[in-house]
C-alpha cells in the first residue's frame, strides 16, 4: 500500500472539519474524494501534503510514517493555483521540479518532454503573464507531474479548465494511473469521479 491514512481528524476552533477519516491508495489506483463545498476535501489533501497538521490520526507512506522527505514523491495541483507572473514558464517548471529534489539536467529534460507532449514547446521562454489561462493551466499540470511523482494529489483538477484541457487532463490522469501512479482526486463532480476513480471516499 503506497498511502494509508488512519483516523484523521482536524478542527478549526470549534468547527470539526474532519472526524476520523481513513482511506488507502495503492499504486495505479485513482481515489476520488467527494463532498460538498466546505466538506473538508482541501483540508484533507493539505494534511496528506503535510501543509497542515492533523489534530489526530496517522499517515503512512510506503509503510512508514510520512515525513517531509516523502514529499519528493508527491505531486500536488491545488485548487487555487498559479504561477510566478514574470518568470519564464520553462524555468519555473524546472525550479519547482528541483524543489522536489530533481537534478537540473533531469528536470530540464523531463520538463522539455512534457512541454512537447502537451504541445507547449513554444511557450518555454515566455513569462507566465504572457500566456492565456488555458496555457497556464497546462503549465501548472506539467509542474505537478514533471518530477515523476508516485502519488499525485489533484484538488478539483477540472475546475476552470476548458473542454479541450479537461479532456487532455483526463487522458493524462488515466495514463499516469496505468503507469502505476497513485492518484488522489477531489471533486464534487460525481460523473467525473465515477468514470475516472477506482474507489471513492465520501466526506
Amino acid at each position: 500500500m503506497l498511502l494509508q491514512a488512519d483516523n484523521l481528524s482536524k478542527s478549526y476552533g470549534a468547527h470539526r472539519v474532519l472526524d476520523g477519516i481513513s482511506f488507502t491508495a495503492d499504486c495505479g489506483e485513482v481515489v476520488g474524494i467527494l463532498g460538498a463545498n466546505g466538506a473538508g476535501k482541501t483540508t484533507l489533501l493539505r494534511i496528506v501534503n503535510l501543509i497542515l497538521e492533523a489534530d489526530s490520526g496517522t499517515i503512512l507512506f510506503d509503510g512508514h510514517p510520512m515525513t517531509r522527505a516523502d514529499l519528493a514523491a508527491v505531486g500536488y495541483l491545488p485548487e487555487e493555483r498559479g504561477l510566478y507572473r514574470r518568470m519564464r514558464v520553462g524555468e519555473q517548471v524546472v525550479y519547482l521540479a528541483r524543489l522536489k529534489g530533481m537534478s537540473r539536467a533531469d528536470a530540464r529534460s523531463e520538463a522539455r518532454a512534457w512541454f512537447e507532449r502537451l504541445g507547449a514547446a513554444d511557450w518555454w521562454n515566455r513569462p507566465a503573464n504572457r500566456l492565456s489561462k488555458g496555457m497556464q493551466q497546462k503549465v501548472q499540470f506539467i509542474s505537478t507531474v514533471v518530477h515523476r511523482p508516485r502519488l499525485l494529489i489533484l484538488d478539483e483538477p477540472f475546475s476552470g479548465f476548458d473542454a479541450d484541457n479537461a479532456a487532455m487532463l483526463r487522458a493524462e490522469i488515466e495514463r499516469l494511473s496505468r503507469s502505476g501512479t497513485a492518484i488522489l482526486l477531489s471533486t464534487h463532480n460525481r460523473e467525473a469521479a465515477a468514470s475516472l476513480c477506482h474507489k471513492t471516499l465520501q466526506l
Partner: protein
Amino acid sequence: MKKILLILSREYRLRLRHPSFWVLTLLVPLLLAALYALPVMAANRNARPAEVLVVDETGLFERSLRSSDELSFRRMPSLDYAHDHMADDSRIAAILYIPARETTIPRDAFLYHRSSEPPMALQQSIAAQLQMLLRNAILEDVYGLDPEVYRSVANTDIKLHTRDAATGHESFARVKGVLAAVLAVLMVLALVVFGVQVMRSVQEEKSTRVAEVVAASVHPVQLMVGKISGVALTAITQLVLWVLLATAAIGAIQRANPDLFAQAREQQTARTLATKGTDATAQYNTSVALVDETVQGLTAINLPLVAGVFLAFFLLGYLLYGALLAALAARLDSDADALQWVLLMLSPLLVTLMLIPLLVPDPDGALAQWLTLVPFSAPAAVVLRLPFGISTIQLILSALLLLLAFLAAALLAARTYRRHLVR
C-alpha cells in the same frame, strides 16, 4: 540546505534580472557623482556679472560699493533716470535705491527689479555690503572708532578643543555628529527598502497562489530563510556596486578635471573678498577651518571599523525585520492593510531617527544606551553612537540581543508563515 539555496538563487536572479535593479544601481552612483561635482562646477561658472544701478541719496554708499565677478554697480543721478536706463538696457538686473532721511542713519534700501526677482545670493551680497558700509560709517562718524580696530576686536575668537585625556587626540564632535546622523538615516533607509522587498516577494507568492505549490515541496521556514537570504544577497550586491560605481564616477570626474576644486576655491575666495571687503577674510578662514576640521575628523575616525560594524548591524537588523515583514505579509490578506502595519513595525527605527537631536549631543546617555540594547532600535542606535565610540561590551551585547531577537522572530514568523501563507 539545497532547497534554501535554490530559493535564494531564484530570488537573487529574479531581482538582478529586473530592470529596476539596474536603473537604481546606475542612478544612485550618478546622483552621488552629480552631488559631488555640480556645486563645484556651479562655483566655477563664468557668468556675466549682474549689473545694478545705484541711486544713493544719502551719499554714504555709492562710492564704497565694490563690484565683483558676479555683481557690478553703476551710479545714477536719480531714480527716474535709473528707471529709464533699465527700460532701455536688458542687461541691467535691478536698481538699488537708498532714499535720504531726516535722521543721519538710513534705515531702508530698495531693490527695484524686473518681472523676475534677482537671485537670493545677489540680494544677500548687496545687503551684506550695505550692512558693512553702514556699520563702518557709524563707527567712524558717530563713535570715532577705526573700523579696522573694531574688526580685529570683533573677530577675536577662541576655539574650545575637546581632547581624549588618555590619547590626547582631538574629538571632532561636530564631524562625528554629522556622520552619526548620516549613518543612522542610511541604516534605516536600507532596512526599509530591503525589508519591504522581502515582504513584496511573500505577497507575490501569496497573491499568485504559488505559495501552496511551494509549501508542498519545502518547509515554510526554508522558504522564508531562502527568501530573506536572496534579498540580503541582492542588497549586498547593490551596496557593493554603488560603492564601486560611485568611486569610479567620482574618480573619473577628478581625472577629467584635476583642478576643479582648486579653481572653485580660488573663485570663491575672490568673490567673497570682492563683495564683502576685508570682513570676509575672517569668514573665509572660518569656512576653510570647517573643511579642514571635517577632513581631520574623518581621518581620525576608524572608517573601516565603522563600515564593518555598519554592515554587521545592517545584516542583523535586516534579518530581524525581514523575518517580521515576511510573517506580516503571510498574515495579511490585502495590500491595503500593509502600509499601516509596516509603519507600526518599523516605528522603533523611525523613533530613533526622530531622537537624533537628543542622541547626538549625548551619545553615551541613558537614552542612547537603552536604544542600543533594544533590538528593534539597535541597528540605528548603534551606528548613531559608532563615530563617538561605543564600548565593546555594549556592542557585543547589542549584537547578541539582536541575534536572539532575530531567532525569536524567525520562530514566530515561521509559525505565522506556516499557518497563514496557505489559507
